[in-house]
């Protein structure tokens, strides 16, 4: 019985945290960026208002769009929610960790990306095609870098299961300052920037269609479809931050099932994600967007850092 309660409570909490806090993280990034530009900026809860507004708005569909265009928002939203069940946020292990490991997470993201790229092509507009082609060519270089960064952590922790990685690290906090761990952190951070379409790889705030990557694919979306995609993007960024936060700084995460532990876990988690959000905003503010053909060089840095991390692990040992 308690097994069932544990599963239900932690899973629901898990979903709620990701669903409800993801827009806040985006809000914090935007607010920080605004302050760095000497602007007052919109309130940190503005993304919630935006989503509410979009859900109320009418949907306009391009006449050329097929079912792919209409299904994609739900597929993206659904796959991101599924990931939310697998990535530990406030407690570990997550009840459904046996469903899939970190490789499942990576490929669930790939499913979402695949469909968004298809939907971009589906509208038949020049910008959609442009965005899809850029997204897919970047994806093919982001993926190896991401795999290597993640495997480095998996090797150091001895498992690809996210919950087990986080649990082990939280019991041996000293291993956090292991050099290979720190290098892998930087590698994964770069990958996060690239994967979630932030500066210097992509500019989520631009109005220039010709420069867009992710935004170009979703230009034709409106109303609740756009809300789903926007929300899913925010959750994707949030989940990536959760991954980094708990894989590299698992401090405070709830390892037992009690109210106090969960409350501490939630508090610690919010602090960690806020710090990461501010870090993302700092990176975005101090850099310009890279030339499209320079992005592989950046990802090569992530790749090499992860590789070094792996080598260091075998040389120094745990």
């Amino acid at each position, binding site marked *: 019985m308690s097994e069932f309660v544990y599963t239900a409570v932690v899973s629901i909490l898990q979903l709620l945290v990701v669903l409800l806090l993801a827009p806040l993280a985006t809000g914090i990034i935007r607010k920080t*960026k605004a302050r*760095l*530009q*000497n*602007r007052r900026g919109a309130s940190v809860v503005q993304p919630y208002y935006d989503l509410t507004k979009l859900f109320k708005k009418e949907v306009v569909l391009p006449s050329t769009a097929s079912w792919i265009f209409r299904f994609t928002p739900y597929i993206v939203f659904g796959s991101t929610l599924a990931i939310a069940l697998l990535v530990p946020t406030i407690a570990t292990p997550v009840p459904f960790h046996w469903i899939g490991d970190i490789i499942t997470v990576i490929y669930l993201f790939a499913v979402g990306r695949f469909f968004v790229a298809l939907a971009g092509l589906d509208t038949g507009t*020049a*910008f959609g*095609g*442009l965005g899809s082609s850029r997204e897919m060519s970047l994806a093919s270089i982001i993926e190896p870098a991401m795999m290597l960064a993640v495997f480095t952590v998996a090797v150091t922790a001895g498992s690809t299961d996210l919950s087990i990685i986080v649990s082990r690290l939280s019991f041996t906090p000293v291993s956090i300052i292991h050099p290979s761990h720190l290098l892998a952190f930087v590698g994964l951070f770069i990958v996060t920037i690239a994967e979630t379409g932030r*500066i*210097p790889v992509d*500019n989520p*705030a*631009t*109005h*220039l*269609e*010709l*420069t867009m990557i992710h935004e170009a694919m979703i230009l034709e979306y409106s109303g609740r479809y756009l809300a789903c995609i926007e929300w899913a993007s925010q959750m994707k960024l949030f989940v990536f931050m959760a991954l980094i936060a708990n894989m590299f700084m698992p401090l405070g995460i709830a390892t037992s099932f009690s109210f106090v532990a969960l409350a501490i876990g939630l508090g610690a988690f919010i602090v960690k994600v806020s710090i990461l959000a501010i870090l993302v905003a700092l990176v*975005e*503010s*101090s*850099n*310009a*967007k*890279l*030339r*499209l*053909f*320079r992005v592989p060089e950046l990802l090569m840095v992530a790749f090499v850092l992860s590789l070094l991390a792996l080598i260091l692990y075998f040389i120094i040992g745990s």
Partner: protein
Amino acid sequence: MKKQEYIHLLRNALGEILTEELSAAPNELYLALKPKALSKLPDVCSLLTKSLRGQFVTIIANDEQSIRGLFSLYYIFSLPADDLFIILRVSVDAQHREVPSISSSIEAADWFEREMKDWFGIIAFPNIRKLAVHPDWPEEVYPMAKEFNPRQTIPRVKGTFDFRHVEGEGVFEIPVGPVHAGIIEPGHFRFSVAGEPIINLDAQLFYTHKGTEKIAEGLTPQRALWLAERISGDSTFAHALAFCHAIERICAREISARALVLRTTLLELERLYNHVSDIGSIFLDVGFSVGAAMAFQLKERFMQLNEMLTGSRLLRGMAAIGGLRRYPNKSQWNALHAELATGRVEFNSFIDLAMSASTAIDRLETTGVLSHKDAYRLGIVGIAGRASGIARDFRQDHPHCSYPHLQFKVAQHEEGDVLARMNVRIDEVRESFNILEQLHRQYDHGSIAATSEYREASGHALGYVEGWRGEIVHWIMLDEHGKIYRWKITDPSFHNWRALKVAVLNNIVPDFPVINKSFNLSYSGNDR
């Protein structure tokens, strides 16, 4: 060289085919080409540009059927060495409106010839591709001919844009506009790309054609000035001043020293806020939002300064024939220079910070290169020309306003990339601060009245200023009642749009917006 020497030189080279005509302004030399020597037109023009180092400025077509029973074309060349304009007048028969094309030797004339075909029906074969009217405009309806009534509605015909199609494996077209994201004027672009690199760019402009030149005909200069301020919002004062210059030259009107200083001040203030704004926009387009935000803050300060001084952020309602509409009082004048001193410090620290952002500078270097050769070939003017090593600045070549009494350096860079165009702006902003400081000392709180009264006059003359984007040249002909008979506006954008097409070649599509912004051409000034 004096005017007579030029005439002598041309006659020696070409024979007796040119006759001198009357000119209202001392630095304009009008030469009429004899009708039977029409076929020599390209030779005369290449002699002027190649041997005499003249620079092509503009072509003015004029329906003079009511004056001399024919059309006239005025080919204007600038001779910076002698502060002289040589204006070649060619008569065109009203029934057979054909002249030899000069754009095979002077490529800069290409768009001007196409425009005169679209608006006057004067054909410079083979340069007949539509430019200034859209494809749905019927053939043989020429909106600038005198018989055309601007109030009528013209039924449109079917037509499609005549784009140059590029074919081949993996080549596809990206249509952009005419409505763009953001606050940008309308224009339709058609990119042909092979993957990301751009292999051809075609543009359809003239969406913001307002018929300014046509509707001004028959107005008094005082009323047309109101239109001049609205040719291109970012160059409000420069255009209005170029207009005033032309009228003042026709009427031989002297301007008080105090008005000259203030006019120069306003020109430099216009340059200041536009350059700072462009620097910000360039940073914004490469995603360097902190740099952009800093520049836009500065721009806002300069615009508020404009408002403090003149009551208008865009310097509207200041220009007047014979002087200025209003004069700032002593406290406003001193406040201006106190503000400019702090603005200068802030600008320098902003540039220091922005130039240390290596990822931003990396995006600007080697992007959108306009080689010196291409810039020279296309007759590129203003900041775009100066960034490609063309030292062409009317402030120096044809000194007007207070510029003859000022010390300044013409900014020049050789690389021709986006960074060079930004560096020209940075140098010019710094130079503007110097100029404004000198003007502060020269300002004389004495008389503001023009030294001569306004009197109605007829005739024609050029009016020009170096606006922030480049040279702005107006040519005005007043009829016997002192009303406008013909007003030709040449905005630097009309010269420079073709540079954009060349500069984007082999660049990748996502770099187009920043290349475009580095030129920042005016659609409104181009389309008029």
